[in-house]
């Protein structure tokens, strides 16, 4: 069973995506912010799904941290953002793909099938 870590501060998004991953038979670990990732207090997943705009440390910073760590640099990171202008920033931070909100389920499935 694949394992995805989601970092998202909006409860509704967290909840709806939890529902989706549950139905997709993918294990999901949810964090409200990036503290656990940056402290290394987590089990490395098969894929990171990071919201860009978080309270506290920004999603892009978390992405850069993951990609800078030997242990995690090869784990795909997907950024999520409401603004398409994040796409180039995400690429610059080492993210593998971007999901622009609002996304369709089809979009998520595409990404998952590509990176998992």
């Amino acid at each position, binding site marked *: 069973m694949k394992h995805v870590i989601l970092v998202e501060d*909006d409860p*509704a998004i967290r909840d*709806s995506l939890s*529902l*989706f991953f549950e139905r997709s038979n993918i294990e999901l670990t949810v964090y409200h912010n990036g503290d656990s990732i940056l402290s290394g207090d987590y089990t490395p997943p098969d894929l990171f799904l990071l919201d860009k705009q978080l309270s506290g440390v920004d999603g892009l910073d978390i992405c850069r941290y993951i990609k800078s760590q030997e242990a995690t640099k090869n784990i795909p990171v997907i950024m999520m953002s409401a603004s*398409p202008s994040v*796409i180039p920033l995400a690429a610059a931070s080492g993210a593998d793909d971007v999901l622009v909100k*609002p996304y*369709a*389920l089809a979009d998520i499935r595409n990404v998952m099938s590509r990176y998992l």
Partner: protein
Amino acid sequence: MDIYKNESDRLAEREALLKATIDSSMDMIQVFVAVRDDRGEIVDFVWILNNKASERIYGDVIGKSLLTLNPGVVQEGIFDTFKRVVESGEPDQSIRHYVHEQFDGWFHQSTVKQNDGVATTTRDITEAKEVMQSIKDSQTFLQAVIDSSLDIIQVFEAVRDTEGRIVDFTWKVQNSKGLQQNGEVIGERLLARNPGVISSGIFDRMVYVTETGIASEEEQYYAYEQFNEQWFYQALVKQGDGVLMTTRDITLEKKAKLGILHLKDEIAQKATDKYLTLFNNMEQGFCIIEMIFDDTGVAVDYRFLEVNPVFEKQTDIKNAVGRTMKELRPAHEAHWFRIYGDVVKTGKSAHFENEAAHLAGGVWYETFAIPFGRPENHQVAIFFNDITERKRTEERRSYLLQLSDALRSLTDPLDIQATACRLLCEHFNVERVIYADIEGDEYNVKCSHLRGSGNVTGSASIPVFSGRLLEEYRQNGTIAIDDTATDPRLDEEIRIDYAALSIAAVAGAMLIKNDQWIASCTIYAATPRKWTATELILLKETAERIWEAVEKAKIGAAIRESENRLTSMFQALPVAAGFVDHAGKLIFANEEMSRYLPTNVIPSQDEQRYWRWVAYDSDGQEISRADYPGARALRGEYVVPGIEMRYTQDDKTYAWVRVAAVPFRDGDDRIIGAVSVISDITQLKQTTDKLHRLINMQEDFISIASHELKTPVTSIKTYAEIVAESLQEQGDMENAVLVSKLSNQVDRLTNLIRDLLDTTRIEQGQLIYEKEVFKLNELLAERVDEMRHTAANRKITLQLEEPSGIIADRERIGQVIINLVSNAIKYAPNNTEIMIRSTSDGSEIKVSVADQGIGIPQDSLDKIFERFYRVGRGSVNTYPGMGLGLYISAEIIRNHGGRISVVSEEGKGSVFEFTLPLKDSI
């Protein structure tokens, strides 16, 4: 005692006698006693006696040292002689040449021993000695002269009658040359041997020299007796009662000289011939005159001695030779006599130009006057050229120059005409000048100048040309009436009018412009006058200049008026404007500028004003004064629209201004200053600041809205999709469809949010494009595939040519494609085709989206790319949307350097088309 007394008296008596004796001698008698040293050697002598003659020479020297007073005695051997006489007792007699102390002469001196000393008698024999010496000298000299001379030397002694008159001479002496010539003649009478001396004048001269003692020298021709046409140089000097005659034969020399003289005459003759040829053919006038002075030495007249043919031509004087100038031309100017008189007096040539008003009808000559012949003859040779033409040209030129100068500075047309008329009057020396404008047939006198009474403007009661005169005037452009009394062209009426005004001669010139007679310039003389063609041309030229000056003045007035307008405008400008000179000083400024000139002094001198100005660059650093707009403009930079500066006002409050400056160049493109414009933007700045705050708020709003609106939408959509899927799985298709519709509406809401935000960004210039290289056709295919599920029954066809990539914002171009395709789907009925084509011409790619929908009304075509524009269609079918999609699409395409357009026909369909430059062509 008596005996003693007697003996004593006797001795004194003898001594007195002796003294008287020696005193009576003319010779100097002196007695010396020797002075001896310790060894008995005589080292000096001391006077112990002097007679009167000696006293006269030496004074009182008794007891004094000889060597001290007369040291010369040692050198002349006298001292030694004295010593020898004392020591040997042998007397001495010597002739001495003594030139020491007070003596300069020859002396005979006898010296005898007297006790232990000497007595000497000295006689001055200088005179005798000199006579002897001179006799000896002259004898020797004469002998030498006489012997060596090649001249004949003869001495004659006069023979006088009883009354003392010289009647003849006898030969006293002759030298060997004389002997050769005369034979033995000593003691013979001159007249007996050479009677020719009478008729040749020699005898008279000999008498004259003998009687007066005045020597004589002559070259003497003598052809008597044994002499054959011989020339002698003869010098006579009185010698005793007669003459010494020195004679040299100079016949050969004389003949040679005469030959030369003769030759000279021949050459002179030839030269004279040449001179005459020259004289008669030269192009200059030439004459030789003899000046005539009055008793006080003032040159008053001259007489012509010679004239050449050109003289007559240039002076118009016939048969001048032998007559005086005053006879020929009584009014001839005094300056001519004065100048020629000076040539005679000073002996110096003169070169000058002057006028002769009474010769040849008034002429100017360039004249060379040269003193000629002997000064006492008072003759002057004169060469002259008629330079009248040149002089007149110069005068004309000078007149025109004067005219131009005078008119240049004038601005009032009336002043111009008046000034010109006055100058014309002076130059032509006429009584009256009239300048008139011709308007139609109206002769409109603008200016009338009457000599001596100034200008009369705008009035004239002067006859106007008419009839035949007018016709002629029109034909020639000028007219000349030399004598109003006799000119046959004048009718009687006008003749009477002229006579009444004392007008005897008239000349006029008309001014023609564009084939129109527009002005006339006429001059009037009080005496008949022969007008020359040149004068008429000059008159015409004057008219021309007046007109030009008037026109220029009119233009000048127009320029001034326009300048005034500009100046008032400049002054009234709501911005401060001024001119800064190259030193950075404000030298010209308008009203508004005074706000920035605390002292209000122009040119600005207020060093203080600098602290009032501050400007900052984009980093907040204070800009140095060298980079202020004025300074930059002076370096040639166009500082437009300028920079913001802060100005501290008198009340210490700030004014924010925008200062712009541009260089100001002269005709040679040199920067001579700068134009500076200052506009108060304090108000604007406050507004802008508010606006900036608003914009910042809006930016925040966009960012917040993006996130905060989209986040719930995202979860709603996810939930809806999951619910739809779940219902489908459960087989509840009815509800599944309902939930799908919910999902679609969420998409619409998303799009609306996006469009609103995009529009806001576009408005604020904040839409950011992230350009990359990609293949447009791939994007087209992707986006169209995504939309197929919304197209239902419409057929979407892609016809894509494969060009190279483009550089663009992939997302934004995708947005345009979605926009156009979704519009096509929206407005096209079911079962129609939507055709998407891409073509490329190598420089750009063209994408068209064609539908067979309802089309767009023609009056809306040009508006559909506007913001919030929606095609009004009455109430029939309404289509949802805010009218932002095409506006945003157009913005995106334009930003990429492409074009977007639409062709449409109502009821038939629309074709939207956009272009994008290909990567290779960028």
